[in-house]
Each structure stands twice: as C-alpha cells, then as structure tokens.
C-alpha cells in the first residue's frame, strides 16, 4: 500500500456567474430533462477559464479545471496562486463544504479544515464554552477537548479571560483562541487557509512552529494556502502553483514560489532592448549626436535574463554609438514598482567628464549591480546618454525594461537569515558588512 493520503483525480468545478436563483429554473428543468434521458449535462460543455480581468461570453466559468495531484503522508504542501486562481475552491472541496462538478478526491484519515479561524464561535458564550463548541464543530469529541483544554488555554494565552464571553475579547485574543483550538485538533490531514494572516508577529511565529511540529513529529499532512511566500517557503516541502483554475501539480516549493513570483510579472519580460523607443532628444533638429543601439541585462555568466535572485549580481550592458564626437556619460536609473527612484549610476568614477569616450564610434558600457543589495521587487530601468559639462541629455529611454528581483527565501539569502515575512515596503535589504563581539 502506498502512503498517498490525498489523491486528487481530474477535479473540475463549474460556477454560474451572475444572479443565481432567477432564471435558473429553466436551466434546472433543462438539466433535469437531460438527466432523465441519461444524457450529459448540457451546461457542462460550456464554460470558460476563470480569468476575471476579461469579460467572457459564457455564463458559466470553470473555477477549477482538471486538477490532478497526489500528496503523501507527512508532506506539507503550499498551494499558491493569484486571487481567483482557484485555491479556495480547491480547499472548499477538500473540506467538503462544496462538491466538485467532475472528478473526485480520495482521502485517508481524518480531515480537519481551518478555512477561517473561529468558525461557529458564539459571541455570547464564554471562552470555555466556545472551546468546546468550536472543537466539536471541527470534529473533536468532548473527551478529546477536555484532555487538551489546559493546553489550548495555555497556547492561546487567555487564561484570565476563559470565563468571559468572547464578544468582550480583543480581536487578537479571539484569533489566538480560535487558532489554539484548531492547532490541537490532531487530524491526519490539516487544511489551512491563510489563517496566519492575523495575529501579531509573535503569535504568527508560534503558529508556524506549531504547524511544523504537527508535520515533523506526528507525521501529519498539511495543506496550506497563503499569499505569503515567506511562510510557504518556511513551512512547506512541496508546492502547488495554481493559475486560472489549472495547475501542473505537485512540485518543489522553490519551483512553485518561483512560478508565482515570475508568473505575476510576465509583462515586458524582455532581457534585451533595441533602443527604438527614446523619449527625449536634445537636438532641436532631431539629429542624433549619440544613439543607444542595444541594452541587455545579463547574469554572472553573461546569460541574458531579467529575473534575478536578491543574492545575485546582474549587469546592465549598454551598446551605444557616438555619432558626432561629443563627451558622453551613459547612465541608468532604477525605479521600484512603487514609483520610488532607487538608484542612479553613471561611469563617472572611471571617466570623470565623459571625455574619454569622445571619439566617434561604438562603445559598450557595463554596470554591475551587486547581489545582496536590493530587496525583492520589480524595478524599471531607464537609460540615458548625457553630457555633464555642458549639461545635455542626448537621449533618454524611460522605463524601457523591467527587472524582477525575487527572494529565494532560503539559506543563500544572508540578508534575510531566519526572518520569515515579506517587507515590500523596503527597497534595500543588503547583507552589510557587520561585526559583533561579546562585551561582558
């Protein structure tokens, strides 16, 4: 017998858009009539993939389309994807709050799902009463809860309030209690949906620790949906990347995270620019003194790319021509996706006034941005060919390329260390030169 505990076989889920309940009677009757004649449901044939950005023709969409994967005992699997990719629908089917339209899922052992913390909490009941009620809703028996009661109260850290109605709790306490109950469920398969998004940092850490403990020590299987790549990377050993209701199945967590981060940034995913889109000429008669011929972004090995790890250096190569013998300093600028100009750099350290490149001809200028400096983000690259004395901007190419810097979130990222979490607000996350010594 294999140790596969979850087997998803060809699962699809169709939803009807628009108002349900009006005008469905005719569809219901039609459907019923087809079924009576043991024909296939006519509405299953229609339906489009679930792309919420484009307006479709069909009333029916496939929220999930032909999902297949297997999960073995003890695996912690992160399910990731953009909003509307079908993650929650999949979890809903797994936790049996709805059914697939086609296909089936086979499961071994007891499944507990935590799609929301505090499901069924009654505001008027005390913490104690809610622990029992919530535990029972999640499938525990009263005896199991009684055995775990002290542990739950302790984990939540609400001992003093245990006999107070939960409506008087702070939202943090409420969430702590709710997660504490769920964390002590001891199911064979635990399904979690983004529950860690709540609570303070300390509690989040505690939750992550608990989940890891559950899978490491007890060999339980965990399915975990999150938008926090840091949590997924820290917690899971496999990933399922979903996109518009489809998935390629189980893969390494690094692979899935990479797909998620890359896939979201397909736009302008070019590692080369041919200088055809200048936004600014200095000369009034539009004749060119200088001209950008080609811009490439390359990695350490000289391979063209526009996606780099935070730990990886990359080089911007500008091929340009000096057409009329002017002093010229090529330079570039990086702007973060939040519109912040992050850096500007030219080759003035080696050519103070640009006079060294005064001779007409073609040049190759290279700038290397070191690894371990920028935080994960998207950056827009602008290129300019300037003269600094007298100050003239010959040619400028604004936001012509996009560079994606992503965080592998593993041990290679020295700057991050064991920190779990995403800091999208920060531009630089460098691995600085640092030191410490014991002073007493």
């Amino acid at each position, binding site marked *: 017998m294999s140790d596969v505990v979850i087997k998803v076989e060809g699962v699809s889920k169709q*939803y009807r858009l628009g108002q349900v*309940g009006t005008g469905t009677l005719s569809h219901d009757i039609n459907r019923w009539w087809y079924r009576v004649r043991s024909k296939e449901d006519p509405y299953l044939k229609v339906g489009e993939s679930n792309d919420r950005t484009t307006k479709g023709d069909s009333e029916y969409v496939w929220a999930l389309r032909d999902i297949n994967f297997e999960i073995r005992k003890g695996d912690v699997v992160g399910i990731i994807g953009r909003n509307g990719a079908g993650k929650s629908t999949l979890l809903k*089917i*797994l936790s*049996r709050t709805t059914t697939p339209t086609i296909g089936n899922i086979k*499961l071994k052992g007891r499944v507990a799902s935590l799609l929301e913390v505090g*499901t069924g909490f009654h505001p008027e009941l005390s913490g104690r009463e809610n622990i029992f009620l919530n535990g*029972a*809703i999640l499938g525990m028996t*009263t005896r199991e809860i009684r055995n775990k009661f002290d542990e739950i109260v302790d984990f939540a850290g609400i001992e003093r309030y245990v006999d107070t109605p939960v409506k008087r709790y702070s939202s943090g306490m409420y969430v702590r209690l709710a997660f504490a109950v769920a964390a002590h469920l001891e199911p064979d398969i635990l399904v979690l949906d983004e529950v860690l998004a709540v609570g303070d940092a300390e509690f989040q850490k505690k939750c992550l620790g608990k989940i890891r403990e559950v899978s490491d020590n007890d060999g339980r299987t965990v399915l975990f949906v999150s938008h926090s790549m840091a949590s997924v990377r820290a917690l899971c050993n496999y990933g399922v990347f979903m996109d518009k209701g489809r998935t390629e199945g189980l893969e390494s967590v690094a692979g899935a995270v990479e797909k998620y981060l890359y896939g979201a940034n397909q736009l302008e995913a070019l590692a080369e620019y041919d200088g055809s889109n200048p936004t600014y000429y200095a000369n009034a008669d539009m004749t060119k003194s200088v001209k950008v011929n080609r811009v490439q972004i390359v990695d350490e090995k000289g391979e063209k790319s526009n996606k780099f790890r935070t730990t990886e250096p990359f080089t911007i190569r500008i091929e340009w021509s000096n057409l009329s013998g002017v002093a010229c300093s090529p330079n570039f600028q990086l702007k973060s996706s939040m519109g912040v100009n992050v850096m500007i750099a030219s080759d003035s350290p080696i050519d103070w006034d640009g006079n060294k490149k005064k001779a007409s001809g073609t040049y190759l200028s290279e700038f290397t941005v070191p690894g371990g400096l920028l935080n994960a983000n998207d950056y827009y690259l602008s290129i300019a060919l300037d003269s600094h004395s007298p100050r003239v901007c010959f040619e400028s190419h604004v936001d012509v390329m996009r560079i994606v810097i992503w965080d592998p979130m593993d041990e290679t990222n020295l700057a991050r260390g064991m920190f779990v979490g995403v800091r999208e607000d920060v531009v630089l996350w460098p691995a600085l030169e640092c030191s410490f010594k014991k002073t007493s």
Partner: protein
Amino acid sequence: MSSHKDHEHWDLIIRPRANLFDLGLKDIWRYRDLLRLFVKRDFVAQYKQTVLGPVWNIIQPVFTTIMFLLVFGKIANIPTDGIKPTLFYMAGITIWNYFSTCFTTTSTTFVTNAAIFGKVYFPRLVLPLSVVISNIVRFFIQFGLLLIMMVYYQFNGYPIHIGLQWLLIPFLVVLMGGIGLGSGIIISSLTTKYRDFTILVSFGVQLMMYATPIAYPLSYLMGKSYKWVILINPLTPVVEAFRYALFGKGHFEWSSLIYSVLFMIGSLGIGSVIFTKTERSFMDTV
C-alpha cells in the same frame, strides 16, 4: 488501468454526486457531542444578557392564552369540549408552539447557517436535530406551566384525569417534532435556491394554526362542509390526541393518528434525502 490502486482503502471519497440514500447517519452519531453542544448553545446563548431569562418561555404562552380567552372565548364564544377554557387553550398553544418553532427554525437551517456551513464540514443534519431537541426543553417548561395550572384547577372543580392515556404524551411530542423537522428540512433545502419559501413559511405557519384545532375543538366542526380542510391537516389528530390524553375529553381515533405517523415518516424520509442532497453543494447556490 484498473490497477491495484483501486483496491486501496480510502476513508473518504469526495464525489460530484453521492448515493441518494446515503444519509450519513453514522457520521451524525460520530458528531453526537456536537449535537449536545448545539442544544446547550441554543439554550444558554438565547438568554444571556436578559433579566428574565428562561421565564420568557412561560410569558409567551400565558399571554397568548389570555388573548385566546378574550377573542375565541368571550368574543367568538366558541365552546371548548367541556374543558376549562384556560386549560384548553394552553394545552393547544403548548403543543402548537413546539411544532411551529421546530418548523420555522429548521426551515431556515441553510440560510442562517451559511457562514458556518461554508467554512467547515460536519453532518448538516446535526443542526436541525439540535433545534428539535432544544425545543423539547422549552416544550417541557411550558408543559410544566400547564401542569401547574391543571393542579390549580383541580382545586377549583376541574379534576385531573390521570390514566394510561398519559403515556401517549411523549409519543405525541415526538410525532409533533418529527413532522416539524421533516417539513422544516424540506423547506430549508428548497430555500437555498428559491427564497420565496422563506416568505411562504412566515405567514404559512400562522395560517396553519387556524387550520389546526388550537382555538376550537374538532367537535365544533361536526357537520360543517369545510371540515375536510381541518381533517387533512396531519397536525389535527396530534393536537386532539394531546388534549384527549390530558383531559380525557375530545376527539381521538387511532386511525387518524396513524395518518399523522405516516405523514411524519414520509416527510422525514423525503426531507432527509433532499437535505443530504442539498447540503453537498448548497454553498454554490445559497
């Protein structure tokens, strides 16, 4: 391709469509603790932050009885089969209340619990069952009041007839609860798609009360042409039998009670099949 994997044991297979008659009764048994806690919750939570608490259970039938005494007794002057009018109305109201709360509360099972149903699985039938059980507690409180009144009137010239017919009472309560539950879950399943039924229930129950001999005895209708309306009502025999059991007076036939029993079995059977079919995917339509 029917490899060895087909012989593997799976604890659970989630399919698009389940067997029509697989009601998951075993599952309900496994969740019996939840059933108990729901009953407790219903009862405890309802009276938190009220001054009178469970006393409200008594106030409602008392005032309804007074109203009936006034309207049907004094104004309409309808006879009460020789039973003391206060007791007559109170008995009818007590058993009717049990039915109507069971029916109206279970009929909104899916809609009112959509939030919790959408997040976690447990056998959905647990909820309507808990409603019926927690209402039994309320029924017994009101029934206790009725007994106190009967003892009071014992000393005022209306002796209590204690006899074997009292054994009918638990059976009648189960029957009333069963009919309420059965028809309630049928309606609740239909409500997930068509909300029209919610509106229908809210005034339907009121109309139904007038079609049940609560405020008048069945004997009052003898020889009237519209009597059949009251007779096809499966609740009529239950109410009449309830009063017969308590006071030894009234219209009671085993044959008509069997009609009620068949109706209960029928509605529970159809109801649980529809209900389990609905619970699997109602989240998509509710």
